[in-house]
C-alpha cells in the first residue's frame, strides 16, 4: 500500500505526539486518584490538626489531637491491642489458608474448581449478613453451644464465645481467609510443574521439594495475603461492634465514635491518620519483601 497523505501525517505526528499522548493516557487515573483518595486524605490530614472547643471547630494548626492520643489512657492500649489482634488474625489466616490452598492447588485431582469456588463463595454474600450469621453460631443459644450441649461436653450454655476478643478474632479470620487463600493459591498455581520434576530428579523428596522450591516460590502470595488480612483486620469496626462486646473494642470503633457520636472530627481524623500511617508502613515493608521474591513474574 502506498503511503497516503494521512498516514504520512501520522508518521510525522507520532514523534511529537508521543509525549503528549502519554500524558493524556495518565489523566483519567490521576484525576480519579486525586478526587477519591489523595484529596480526601489531605483534607483528613489538615482536619487532624484542628481542634474542637464546645461545638466549634477551631481552624488553627495544633498538635493537640496527636498529644491526646498519647496522653489519654484509652487510646494507646486499644491501639496496640488492635495491632496485635490484626497480626494474630493475619498469621492465623496464613497458617490456615496455606494448607488449604496447597491442598486445592497441588493435591486434589477432581472437583478442584468446585473446591476453589466453595472457598470463594462467601465473598458473594453481604459482609453484614455474614457477621450476623456468626452471632447465631457463637451466641448463648447459638449453634456452637447447642452442639456442645447435645454432646454433653458442657452442662449449660457458655457465654464466652460471643462478645469477646475471641469472637472478633474468629470472625476476622473468617472474613480474611478467602483473600489469603486466593493470593496463595494463585502463587502456587504459577509455579511451573517442571521445577518440581527437576527437584525430584535432583534428589529432593517431597518434603525437601516443599521447603526449598514450593515455599520460597509461593512467598509473594503469602506476603500479599498477609498484607490483605492485616489491613482488613486493622481497619474493621463492624465485627467488634457486632461481636466484640466491651472487651472486644478495637481502634476502628474509637475512630467511628469520634466521627459518629462525639462529633469530634479533628480527633477522629488524627486517630484515623495514625492508623493510616501504620497501614502504609506495613504495605511498604511487605511490598519490599514481595518485589524481591517475585521471581515468576
Amino acid at each position: 500500500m502506498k503511503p497516503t497523505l494521512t498516514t504520512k501525517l501520522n508518521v510525522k505526528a507520532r514523534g511529537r505526539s508521543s509525549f503528549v499522548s502519554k500524558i493524556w493516557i495518565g489523566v483519567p487515573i490521576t484525576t480519579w486518584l486525586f478526587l477519591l483518595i489523595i484529596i480526601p486524605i489531605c483534607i483528613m490530614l489538615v482536619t487532624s490538626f484542628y481542634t474542637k472547643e464546645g461545638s466549634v471547630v477551631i481552624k488553627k494548626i495544633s498538635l493537640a489531637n496527636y498529644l491526646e492520643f498519647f496522653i489519654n489512657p484509652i487510646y494507646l492500649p486499644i491501639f496496640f491491642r488492635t495491632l496485635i489482634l490484626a497480626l494474630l488474625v493475619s498469621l492465623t489466616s496464613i497458617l490456615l489458608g496455606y494448607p488449604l490452598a496447597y491442598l486445592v492447588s497441588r493435591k486434589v485431582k477432581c472437583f478442584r474448581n468446585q473446591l476453589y469456588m466453595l472457598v470463594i463463595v462467601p465473598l458473594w454474600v453481604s459482609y453484614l449478613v455474614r457477621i450476623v450469621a456468626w452471632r447465631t453460631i457463637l451466641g448463648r443459644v447459638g449453634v456452637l453451644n447447642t452442639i456442645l450441649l447435645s454432646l454433653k461436653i458442657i452442662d449449660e450454655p457458655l457465654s464466652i464465645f460471643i462478645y469477646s476478643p475471641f469472637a472478633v478474632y474468629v470472625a476476622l479470620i473468617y472474613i480474611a481467609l478467602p483473600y489469603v487463600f486466593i493470593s496463595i493459591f494463585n502463587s502456587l498455581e504459577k509455579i511451573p510443574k517442571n521445577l518440581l520434576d527437576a527437584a525430584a530428579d535432583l534428589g529432593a523428596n517431597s518434603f525437601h521439594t516443599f521447603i526449598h522450591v514450593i515455599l520460597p516460590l509461593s512467598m509473594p502470595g503469602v506476603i500479599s495475603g498477609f498484607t490483605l488480612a492485616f489491613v482488613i483486620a486493622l481497619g474493621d469496626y463492624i465485627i467488634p461492634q457486632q461481636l466484640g462486646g466491651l472487651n472486644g473494642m478495637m481502634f476502628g470503633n474509637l475512630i467511628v465514635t469520634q466521627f459518629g457520636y462525639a462529633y469530634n472530627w479533628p480527633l477522629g481524623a488524627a486517630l484515623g491518620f495514625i492508623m493510616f500511617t501504620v497501614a502504609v508502613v506495613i504495605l511498604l515493608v511487605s511490598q519490599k519483601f514481595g518485589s524481591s521474591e517475585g521471581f515468576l513474574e
Partner: protein
Amino acid sequence: MNNQETEIQLIQITKKFGNFTAVQNVNLEIHHGEFFSLLGPSGCGKTTTLRMIAGLEEPTEGQICLAGEDVTYKPAYLRNVNTVFQDYALFPHMTVEENIYFPLKMKKVKYSSARAMIEEALSLVNMTGFGKRYPQQLSGGQRQRIALARSLVNRPRALLLDEPLGALDFKLRIAMQKVLKDIQKNVDITFIYVTHDQTEAITMSDRICVMKDGVIHQIGTPDEIYNSPESTFVASFIGDMNFLEGQVVQKGENSVTIDVDGKPIISTRFEGTFSKGDSVVACIRPEKICLDKMCDSEFQNKFENHFQASIHRIVFRGTDYEITLKFGQSEIRLIESASEFNNKKIGDQLFIGFQKDDVITYLKECKKVCDYETNLDN
C-alpha cells in the same frame, strides 16, 4: 564402544495415559558411557520413555533396570540419574551457584566441601564466574549450560537430556552440540539424548533408537540407521530419500526387479519376502544418483539402473542444487553440486543412473511401511 557393560535396561515397557498408549513394548539396552539417542517425531513416546527412566513417570507394564538393579517403582529422587529439561527448569529463586549446590545439598554435602565441586562443574561447562547470577540474568545458551552443570555435579550414572537444544538458535545449537559431546567424553557418563532432529542424532550419537507412535522402529549406529533403514519410516525420517512405488516383475535369489512407471529398477537389498506382482516401494538416497547428458557404455556399466527422465524442478540450496526429474507419474530427486550443475534447465531430457546396491525395497502392504507418506513433513 569397547565397554559393553549394560547401564540401563528397559524390558517390555508399556505406558498408557488413559486409553492412549504412549509407549508400547519397548525393549532397550543402553551401555555404559554410550551416547544414546531416542529419535522420532513429536508424540512418538521418546520423552515419556526418558521420563520413565528418570522416575518421573511410572510404566504401566514392564521393568526398568539401572546398573542391574530393578528401579521400576523407585521414586525419582532415589535414582542415580539426572535430567536436563527442555526448558532448563532452573530454580528462579536461587543463584547459579545455589542451583548447582541443590543436588549436593540433597545428598547432605556441606557447602564448604561442595564449593570445589560447584567450581569444577562451572568450569566444565565453561561458565566460571557466573556463580552469583540469577537464572533470569543469563541467556538461553548459558542457562542450558548451567542446567547441564547442575545435572552433572553429583556424577549420576546416566544423564538424560530432553531435547536440550530445542530452544536455541541454529548457530548456538551447533556450538552446544560440540560442548555436549566434549563433556560426555570428559566425564564418562552415559548420555541418553531425546531429539526430533535427525541431524543432531546422527552427528552426536553412538547409537540411535528411532521411535514412532510409541514403538521402536530401529536401533543401530548412525551408519546403520542411515544406510540400512529397516522400514520406510526410518528411511524417510533420517536424511533425504526417494520413494518409488512399483510392482515386482522378477524375483531372483539376491535381487529383485521392480517396474516403476515402465522403467525396470534392480534392487539387491530388501526387507521382508515378496513375490512377483507385489506392490513395493523402492528407496534410493538422492546423493546416490548420478545425472548425465549421454548414456554411454561407461555410464551403463557403472549403473545397473539407468533411464531417461526430464527435469521438472530445480531448487538452488547454496552449495548445491536439488533437481527433481519426472518419468511417467514418478518423480525422483537428486543433488548436484554447484560446479557440476552447468546451467541445466527445466524440461531438459537427461539420463539418470544409480547402482542396484543402493536401492532398498520394502513391501508396500507392511504396516510399518505405509507411514512414510504422512511423515514427510518432519
